[in-house]
């Protein structure tokens, strides 16, 4: 193995000296992603300017036996882009070209550093790209692919994995592989999306885009408590509707969001339910009337219907500000990302209330109510002795409550380093072993984003037994029908 200095020299040869950072000051930005409590300084951060440079960097790392981590915009909330000590951080921010816009095929092809919002802008006004994480202004498509990102509209429209139709990836040995959703064979594309950078790095991404809906209707219904709002959600779903978005906020988050934005949410409400219907105009109108009736039946105290685009923006502004606004209520907080079957919402919220009382810590709830993805914010004050530890413990119990209810430890933020300790709560040892088989097929040396996702480090053994070539492999594909 060559020394770190030799590798750095090689990387400079590949990307140019200006694009290889090794000074601690220059690396400070890259020590953590959106989850700042985890920090690590890498050996170097490199900013390649083209796919070929990414490949050369990965190959250099492979030859040096040095692990690497790919990073998009660094907005991830699970520490997925946390660097590895003595490893290389590959920053894809310079790969931000939109390579093709082919609306006749409902398709765009982009480099991984292109932002999520830039994709929608590139296909406006006729089309849009549905997965819309709250960080969409800055988060990158490459990061979205790694995390299988969702967003407020995924109850109706699905997740990143439903929109990626092709990928160019670089494996940890420096091989470039083209994956196409339509090509016969294993769905390696489906396995790669959401693998959190542990199977390789994407250098080109083809995405499906969809026609922009003809009409959008947005409203907020206010309720006395989350239980009444939950009843309304159930009624809407039971009526056969799949709204573009259904988002719920509890009393604490309404107050924080309203204090931050002054959007016009009712401060006396115990719960706010944001419902957005989109689609063909006549269908939207018919459904809107139905939603209003169902909310009234569920004892909504007030309904605020957006009359124009400005009001719609206000309604969303408060919802999207909810996380950041929590700073007004507490100096610090843990965000969890557990998912539950939506029908278990009342009992899970009750359990969270009990835990909150027992731990004497406030928990605010903002969540995607349609798909049962909770984002409980466990508030704490790091200046108070023992409170961060109590908060972390409480956050862990909330995750466990979600798994016990038949749900998941993470709906959209990913496992990363933050939730890997929870993986055994959801998966047995044989399940994890099966995951490792996939990992070993793609990255047998464990160089791509090591230490993430899996709860304990594991190695890849050799494939047992001699590889026996099938007669058809020997015959090849020479015959053509």
């Amino acid at each position, binding site marked *: 193995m060559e020394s770190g200095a030799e590798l750095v020299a090689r990387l400079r040869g590949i990307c140019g000296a200006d694009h290889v950072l090794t000074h601690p000051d220059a690396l400070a930005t890259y020590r953590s992603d959106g989850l700042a409590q985890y920090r690590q300084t890498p050996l170097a951060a490199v900013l390649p300017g083209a796919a070929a440079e990414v490949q050369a960097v990965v190959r250099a790392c492979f030859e040096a036996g040095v692990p690497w981590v790919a990073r998009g915009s660094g907005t991830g909330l699970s520490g997925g882009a946390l660097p590895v000590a003595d490893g290389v951080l590959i920053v894809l921010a310079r790969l931000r070209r939109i390579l093709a816009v082919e609306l006749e095929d409902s398709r765009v092809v982009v480099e991984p550093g292109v932002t999520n919002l830039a994709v929608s802008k590139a296909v406006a006004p006729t089309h849009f790209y549905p997965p819309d994480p709250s960080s969409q202004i800055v988060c990158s498509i490459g990061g979205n692919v790694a995390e299988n990102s969702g967003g407020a509209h995924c109850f109706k429209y699905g997740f990143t994995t439903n929109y990626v139709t092709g990928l160019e990836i670089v494996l940890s040995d420096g091989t470039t592989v083209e994956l196409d959703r339509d090509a016969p*064979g294993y769905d390696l594309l489906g396995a790669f999306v959401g693998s959190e950078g542990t199977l390789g790095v994407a250098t080109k991404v083809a995405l499906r885009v969809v026609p922009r809906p003809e009409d959008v209707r947005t409203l907020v219904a206010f309720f006395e408590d989350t239980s009444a709002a939950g009843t309304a959600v159930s009624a809407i779903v039971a009526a056969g509707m799949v709204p573009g978005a259904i988002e719920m906020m509890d009393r604490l988050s309404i107050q924080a969001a309203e204090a931050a934005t002054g959007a016009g949410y009712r401060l006396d409400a115990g719960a706010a339910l944001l419902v957005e219907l989109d689609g063909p105009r006549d269908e939207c109108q018919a459904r809107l009337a139905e939603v209003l009736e169902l909310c009234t039946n569920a004892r909504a105290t007030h309904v605020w219907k957006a009359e124009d685009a400005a009001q719609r923006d206000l309604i969303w502004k408060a919802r999207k500000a909810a996380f950041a606004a929590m700073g007004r209520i507490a100096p610090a907080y843990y965000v969890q990302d557990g998912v539950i079957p939506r029908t278990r919402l009342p009992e899970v919220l009750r359990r969270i209330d009990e835990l909150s009382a027992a731990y004497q810590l406030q928990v605010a709830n903002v969540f995607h109510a349609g798909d049962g993805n909770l984002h409980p914010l466990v508030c704490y004050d790091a200046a108070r002795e023992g409170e961060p530890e109590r908060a972390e413990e409480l956050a862990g119990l909330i995750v466990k409550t979600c798994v016990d209810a038949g749900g998941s430890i993470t709906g959209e933020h990913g496992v990363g380093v933050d939730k890997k300790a929870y993986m055994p709560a959801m998966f047995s040892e*044989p399940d994890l072993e099966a995951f490792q088989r996939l990992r070993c*097929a793609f990255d047998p040396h464990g160089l791509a984003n090591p230490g993430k996702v899996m709860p304990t480090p594991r190695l890849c053994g050799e494939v047992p037994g001699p590889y026996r070539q099938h007669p058809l492999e020997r015959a090849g594909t020479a015959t053509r029908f």
Partner: protein
Amino acid sequence: MLTRVQPASFAAAAEALREAGAARRSVRIRGGASKAWGVLGAAPEVEIGTARLNRILEHNEGDLTAVLEAGVPLGCAQQQFAASGQMLALDPFLGQSHEATIGGVIATADAGPLRHRYGAPRDLILGMTVALSDGTLARSGGKVIKNVAGYDIGKLFCGSFGTLGMILSVSVRLHPLPARTVTALGVADDPALAAATAGALARAPLELEALDVAWRGGRGGLLARCGGLQARARAERVGALMRASGLQGIELVEPDTELWARQRAGQRSSQRALLRVAARPSALAEVLAAADVAAATVVGRAGLGLCFLELDPEALNRLTDALPAGAQRVLLDAPAALRGSAAVWGDPAGGEALELMRRVKARFDPARVCNPGVFVGGI
């Protein structure tokens, strides 16, 4: 000598697979046996049937999810879901007596017209339990509609033709049945006109449930299914769009069940050859023109560029030469004589992708007993 087993539990299935793996005996998994696809090779030594793994483990109405054992006939599951106003939005042809099982449909990634709106089978799977040839029982995903914990092994097994292991159960996302459906029909006798109209419909914000083409002998039609409370009004709009685009014989059909059953049946051939062609949606006119060259009958997803061509086996080479560049071909139904080589899977995938597939196969089925040779590149 063929050994047949029909395990009644996941553990028994895993044990049967382990035994075969240890003895290096080749295994085929059998569901409803409605499809004989893939490369026809040596007969398997062990056949593991899913007939006794036939329970609907969960139907969570309020959550729009379900968990099905692999041997559940998809038609039976749909009946139960429909009773609650729901569906699994996966509507392939189910066989002459509706024998296709959910396990078989997922293992072959088969899908019907609803793919237009709801995606491929892989888009509807939330989780999966599988058995591997070393006896491992493993679960991935979950049963909630949003979940990013762990690798998506379910997608890997979807369309894997039994070559990685045995699918034991799948958890799936359900959708509400549309309140009402009306289909707008229009006829064209020019591939370019049919394709241009399909493109215009696919790009319009109509949220069509399905958008199909049916084509034969230089003439055919587009079928656009509208769903929802205002399905009829929307079908009228679609009809007007078709007319403005130059289509003839515009018709609104309600009920439209029969129409779509015919489209699904067109994806199979009992006597001739059935080729699945995936091309860019914008290449639809070229695919239809190629079909005319080979006297093929076409049904397909007009907005997705996915067509099923039924034709005389002798005309296959002629068709292949006429198809647009980049079109992916897979031969599904065909006489045994044509199914003996890897050419069933069309042109081989890029070398590196195939190599990666071989590595995946080697990790999941190191004994190489699971359906050897039926898949892409001799996997």
